[in-house]
């Protein structure tokens, strides 16, 4: 199956969910956990959607307890998904068709003050 390269970014605490090996691939200049990553592209009839990308992240990138990231078909509460600078609900949410070179970001909400 062909591959699709996207940029993934995990910030505000969401980076703590990701395996340490991806830290080594991270863009040093950004300071954030941010890296290019290849995902299976899907087919013309069944293109890769955000929900599948999230499952891919859960299965391949998340360390430890996978439920901490995604459970029962839902992303863990308190994580915002941002596609190319916009809340994924401005796009099509889980149904959004992932494009090559998309920047997809997982932001953990903060409660402290």
């Amino acid at each position, binding site marked *: 199956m062909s591959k699709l390269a996207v940029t993934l970014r995990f910030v505000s605490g969401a980076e703590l*969910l990701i395996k340490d090996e991806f830290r080594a691939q991270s863009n040093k200049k950004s*300071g954030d956990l941010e890296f290019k990553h290849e995902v299976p592209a899907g087919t013309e009839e069944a293109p890769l959607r955000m929900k599948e990308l999230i499952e891919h992240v859960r299965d391949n990138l998340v360390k430890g307890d996978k439920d901490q990231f995604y459970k029962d078909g839902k992303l*863990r*509460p*308190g994580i915002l998904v941002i596609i190319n600078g916009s809340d994924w609900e401005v796009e099509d949410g889980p149904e959004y068709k992932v494009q090559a070179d998309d920047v997809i970001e997982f*932001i953990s*909400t903060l*409660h*402290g*003050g």
Partner: protein
Amino acid sequence: AQKASDRLTNEEIRRYSRQLLIPEVGTEGQLKLRNSSVLVVGTGGLGSPCALYLAAMGIGRLGLVDHDVVDQSNLHRQVLHTEASCGFSKVLSAVTSISRLSSLCETKVYDVLLDSTNARDIIGGYDIVVDATDNAATRYLINDACVLSGIPLVSGSAVRLDGQLTVYNHNGGPCYRCLFPTPPAPDAMANCSETGVLGVVPGVIGCLQAMEVVKLATGRKVNEDPSMLLFSYRSQPHFRSVKLRGRKPTCAVCGDEPTVTKLIDYVAFCGAGPNDDAPQWKLL
């Protein structure tokens, strides 16, 4: 003496002269600030700079809510407080510092824990609310009270090296529940006592909360789309802004058919309250 709501006093003109010079503020904007009332919930890391700058810039009426007392470990970020006030009420400490800076700002203190029984009464009297608290239960409480009372909410947060800033419930934008319909797991709710915070991080966010209040009070904010500002000491660049969804018609509190029509039990809703330290703080 009662101030005329349409005229600045000579003292105000002298004191705010450097703001009156700015076309985007001017006499009209300064009057809007003076005729505005703002409630700051939390006088800690975020509330300290926010309340200080709001009073300095000329907000007319400032309410401060906090039930806590000043602790030595607060002083690296809660710059409104002093060593002498350690052990004493935070709101009294805060109002002492603010009154040194400005006697023109009318302050009111609420030395209570904001909860479902008192939130609407306290919030109801203000034009704008600032969420400068440190736990999820209180954030949902303040959000719902603001939605039910129709008051815009300037929400800031800061943990470790990161900060976030959003204005909720304003101009067709989302409320906090639109973004986060389900509360996070109790073990995921890190606050600053457990995970630490670099002092200046809430300093930056608290200042920006004061800026958002000025934009709201002067009417400028209506031209802006909903967004969340992300800040990190670690990131390059330090700031990024992401575009947010609008109000969600399905939101439990601000939606078309709300199921939350009065304040609920937020400690039960979140599984943890303002005074609970997360017993085992795990990943997030």
